[in-house]
């Protein structure tokens, strides 16, 4: 259940980002989560709602996109999606391949609305 710690980290990052955008209210935060990131998206959504409950940001949406594992062949340069963990090149069958995506736990975007009222801030998030 490290999704709770991750949900708190997301709020902390949103709070920091909004410092640079006075008057902006956060609407949606986009994430890219690799299938090898060991993060359960449903559990994260649940924790995210829980840490928002009762704050000014209640209703802030989480858009977590799961990124499948992709690898690049060191021998022929082919880039391919990994199916059933098979890391061999789909063209030349080389076993020398390198991960190019699928282990990320990254922010993608933050959607905000700016309506001229003072920015909201979440309390209790360190």
């Amino acid at each position, binding site marked *: *259940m*490290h999704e709770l*710690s*991750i949900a708190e*980290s*997301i709020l*902390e*990052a949103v709070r920091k*980002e909004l410092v640079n*955008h006075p008057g*902006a209210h956060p*609407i949606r*935060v*986009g*994430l890219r989560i690799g299938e*090898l*990131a*060991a*993060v359960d998206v449903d559990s994260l959504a649940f924790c995210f709602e829980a840490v928002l409950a009762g704050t000014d940001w209640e209703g802030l949406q989480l858009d977590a996109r799961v990124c499948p594992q992709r690898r690049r062949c060191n021998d022929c340069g082919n880039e391919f999606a990994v199916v059933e*963990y*098979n*890391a*061999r090149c789909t063209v030349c069958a080389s*076993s*020398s*391949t390198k*991960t190019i995506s699928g*282990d*990320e*736990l*990254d*922010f*993608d*975007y*933050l*959607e*905000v*609305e*700016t309506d001229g009222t003072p920015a909201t801030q979440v309390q209790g998030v360190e």
Partner: protein
Amino acid sequence: MERLPLKSKVLNENQIIAESLRERFREHGVLCLNLISGPGSGKTALLERTLASLDPTTRVCVLTGDIQTDNDAQRLAKYGFPVKQITTGGTCHLDGRMIEKHLAAWNLDEIDLLFIENVGNLVCPSSYDLGEASKIVLLSVTEGEDKPLKYPSIFFKSDLFLLTKIDLLPYVPFNANTAEANARLVHPGMEIVRVSSTVEGGLDAWLAWLEQRMTRAHEDALAPAAN
């Protein structure tokens, strides 16, 4: 409505601490290893036998993480090396800040090898970089051969897979080759060492691996920083 691009990692705060720890370890020639497994795979037993087997001039320290109790620290302290328990009080993993805090009283110049025994959990610790040179995943022969496939993240992120309790192989329906093949499906080229913490010589290959990595850490400390 405006969409602002965000390019950082979600665990950026932890990453910053981890990178600073990694640089300190490199500068001081400390080999830091982060041991991860499910509960009961033999992390503490491996450390006990390792501490008992290492050359006494090796300067080793251990940080051991658990949700509750300092039982592991008590077990490990018997070998005469500095040991500190990190009690997380419910948190399922160690993070960079906990390591930074518990290292504060130790002089890195006086450490060659730092073991971090993570909280018993095959999932959550894989997301948190602790500044280690390598993550090491342990799996015992009393578990399932398909664990590398069920928990791919930690096998993908670990440099070394220690297959533990191999003295029990004759008594359990566990195919070591299958387990190792599964690990290499997830992580092609992964280093794998089979160990037993209870039989004479059961740790020889692991101790040789450690020796080699400590030598490399010392050489790296003498080399100028990459940046």
